[in-house]
């Protein structure tokens, strides 16, 4: 309620707040908005990565050789972070094997390869006549079953986000239709053509997270979308807010700041301050999942860039390959210099075109030398501070850069490296063409590696302490056993001699003992292996006790 009071008490007109920093990048949206939103023909081959957000893999429940129908569940989510996967069309599962996915490194990940039969037979789906009849838990369960994740870019599973919000209570639901990235127009096209469905999706989300308020946010220079949305919102309790154009107002943290004036605490989810943000595309997917009963098998993707003859927005099936889509738009290969998935500022540059569209792929940009000139050489940082002005997190990028170069990670942490959202505004404005984001990413990777090492070393330390404890206990309890048993055939001379004299005395006893001990050790080893398999780290303390 604090938020509502604040909103209504202080700012009845819902004027947006200012965000920190930000840049004004040239927009290239109109050319992909010229034509209408179009469905894509079904390609021959679909590649469906088991993880749609490059996080945790879902578990495949089909095998190679299975015939599947459209909307059939292919893989189910069993761990936090994974989302269910459904068949976008009917066909044959040819294999489940590694394939290149859309990330910066051209990594291989486990994918379901689906050969479409062209018939597009669907399993029976049950449209919900009245979603209002469902309570929020039912809605949540259906959203989860439909395999919906955030379609804006990060791909966080929507059902998990909603349940997170339910724990802390949500005052405000924000439907983010702000596409601040200069090339993307998918959400705008969606709202322009299917605004009513998006609004229904927003209503469903609102009742699913029990939010008291809901706002759809648009950029104020997108007149068509605003008009369409105003029409759709006529009889709705959902409000509309427009924000001044600028990058990165569409970022989750930034849009919360712009709408509410509040900041998401560092290392916390927005739900902790009572706000949830969903992408407009997600709202549309939710609408389809509840009202039509269709799971998430397609998304709206912008295809743009100078080398494309007809840039447009497509409703693409998940798993369609990028080269297939480019061919549909008529690509001029002579001018094509590279491909970006996502926006030009936060997107990923692909190493190969044979990667599938995923649930998070909101835009495909064919690069040309004119729009994306080759990187100029990196010059020295002159500490001009443009980056600090542009940073939406109010970091000091020039300092972070210096610390990253000096590998001074202590200072990096003190200066909030992990509050960097990698929006790229700093690198965009840098007059010395320093790839700042890359420095931060490498520093973050180094810090994470160091922390992994630290955890490892803590583990080793514990083990060593237990080892010492065991040795001490052995020595304390049975010094004669240790020496008599003294496992080594190769020993230093003197102690060996001493031992031998003692050994001679009770040779039979020692032999019996050592056989027993060997047995015990084997049993113990088996137990230890089992324990490890069960996911526990075998505690040497129990070993020590059983060792005697």
């Amino acid at each position, binding site marked *: 309620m604090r938020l509502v009071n604040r909103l209504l008490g202080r700012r009845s007109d819902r004027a947006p707040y200012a965000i920190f920093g930000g840049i004004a990048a040239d927009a290239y949206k109109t050319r992909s908005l010229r034509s209408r939103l179009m469905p894509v023909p079904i390609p021959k081959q679909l590649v469906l990565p088991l993880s749609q957000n490059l996080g945790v893999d879902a578990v495949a429940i089909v095998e190679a050789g299975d015939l599947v129908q459209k909307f059939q569940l292919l893989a189910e989510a069993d761990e936090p972070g994974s989302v269910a996967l459904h068949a976008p069309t009917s066909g044959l599962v040819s294999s489940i094997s590694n394939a290149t996915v859309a990330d910066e490194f051209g*990594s291989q990940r486990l994918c379901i390869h689906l050969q479409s039969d062209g018939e597009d037979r669907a399993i029976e789906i049950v449209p919900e006549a009245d979603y209002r009849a469902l309570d929020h838990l039912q809605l949540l369960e259906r959203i989860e079953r439909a395999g919906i994740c955030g379609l804006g870019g990060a791909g966080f599973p929507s059902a998990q986000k909603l349940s997170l919000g339910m724990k802390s209570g949500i005052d405000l639901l924000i439907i983010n239709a702000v596409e601040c990235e200069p090339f993307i127009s998918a959400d705008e096209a969606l709202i322009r053509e299917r605004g009513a469905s998006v609004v229904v999706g927003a209503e469903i989300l609102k009742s699913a997270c029990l939010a008291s308020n809901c706002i759809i946010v648009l950029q104020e220079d997108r007149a068509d979308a605003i008009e369409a949305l105003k029409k759709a919102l006529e009889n709705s309790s959902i409000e509309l807010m427009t924000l001044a154009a600028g990058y990165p107002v569409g970022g989750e943290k930034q849009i919360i700041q712009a709408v509410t004036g509040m900041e998401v605490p*560092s*290392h916390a989810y927005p739900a902790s301050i009572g706000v949830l943000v969903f992408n407009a595309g997600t709202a549309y997917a939710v609408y389809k999942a509840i009202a039509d009963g269709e799971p998430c098998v397609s998304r709206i993707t912008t295809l743009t860039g100078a080398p494309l003859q007809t840039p447009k927005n497509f409703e693409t099936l998940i798993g369609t390959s990028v080269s297939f889509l480019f061919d549909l738009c008529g690509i001029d290969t002579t001018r094509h210099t590279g491909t970006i998935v996502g926006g030009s500022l936060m997107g990923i540059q692909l*190493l190969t075109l044979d990667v599938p569209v995923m649930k998070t792929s909101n835009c495909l940009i064919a690069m040309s030398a004119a729009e994306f000139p080759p990187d100029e050489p990196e010059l020295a940082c*002159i500490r001009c501070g443009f980056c600090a002005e542009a940073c939406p*997190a109010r970091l000091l990028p020039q300092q972070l850069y210096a610390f990253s170069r000096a590998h001074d990670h202590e200072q990096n*942490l003190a200066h*909030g490296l*992990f509050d960097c959202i990698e929006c790229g505004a700093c690198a965009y404005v840098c007059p010395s063409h320093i790839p700042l984001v890359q420095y931060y990413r490498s520093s973050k990777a180094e810090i*994470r590696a160091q922390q992994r090492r630290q955890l490892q070393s803590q583990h080793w330390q514990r083990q060593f302490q237990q080892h010492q404890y065991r040795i001490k206990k052995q020595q304390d309890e049975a010094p004669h056993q240790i020496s008599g048993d003294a496992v080594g055939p190769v020993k230093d001379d003197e102690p060996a001699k001493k031992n031998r004299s003692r050994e001679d005395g009770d040779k039979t006893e020692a032999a019996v003992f050592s056989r027993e001990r060997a047995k015990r050790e084997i049993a113990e080893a088996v137990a230890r292996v089992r324990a490890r398999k069960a996911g526990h780290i075998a505690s040497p303390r129990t070993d020590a006790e059983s060792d005697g």
Partner: protein
Amino acid sequence: MQTQPSAIGISSPMQHSQRSTGRLMLLVIAACIPGVATATWYFGFGVLINIMLAASMAIILEACALKLRGRDMRQHLSDNSALVTAVLFGIAIPPGASWWLVAMGIFFAIVIAKHIYGGLGQNLFNPAMCGYVLLLLSFPVEMTSWHIPNDALVDGSSFSAFSLAGLRQSLLLSMPVFGSAQMSSPDSIDGLAMATPLIEFKMAGTGALLAAWDAGVSLFSRDSGAAWELVNMGYLCGGLFLIYKRIISWHIPCAIIATVTMMSMLFYAPDSSAVYGTPYLHLFGSATMIGAFFIATDPVSAATTVRGKIYYGIIIGLAIYGIRVWGSYLDSIAFAVLLGNFCAPALDYLCRPRIYGHGKKSRSVPTTEVEP
């Protein structure tokens, strides 16, 4: 199930703004033009000769230093930073300075104050001012006498700066190797060694000034005074241009100018202690404008956080006024800027802005935990 990446990724963003360091530096030089032109008009070719000499030496020294350090010469020369240093240095030293003065200052500026620190972006102190202060400390006499070519004099009080004779004499002044300048008569030197009105003000002493005030004489009525007024206006215009182009931020110049104005208003008392001078005199009677807009704002050595910039400006402003009024040096900009540079890293550290999502209290506490 991720396997090892096969290649090193290309990091976002893929799109960049069109600004580049080299162009920024050129714009700074361009912004100097009004001021330099006015100064040349009033003080003769000496100003231009200084700048040319300094620029050529700076480029040669920069190239040598880059060569010695084994850096890519073309790439690093293209950032034009040595040129900016040279222009600022050339403006700072009095016209008519000999070539060896220029050479020594530029050497100190480029080699010691810049390249020993690792080149552009790493230097802690403003190179041009380092060179200037070195000269000021070593050759106080030479550095405070402004030689206006007397061949350019048309009659006793006015002169045309752009005469050929004036050019010749300026050249001779800076290159005494090729013959001695025709300024042997001590009288003419005295008459033409013009300093800033502030210096005259300071040297004249209270009594003379009171008399001047009584007589209703404004310090700006004289040639040199008017000249300085206009020169400063020129630099002010250039500086405003830079702010308009968003090459420098307004914080530093505003803080400096505000501080100097406040101080001079605070201490100015027209009846008794006229030695303190009016705010107008402090702002336009000396090198305040070029200091505030061009020298103190050198991004490399200035503070970079917003609050840091304001404190930095205040420190410089206080030092400018303090040294001018109470100190024994006549020109205070260079010392003040170096003092500011000395404090800048600490200011930056202490004035870090509050990061998004961090409460006001946790600002200085380093976070050790990391998001999963």
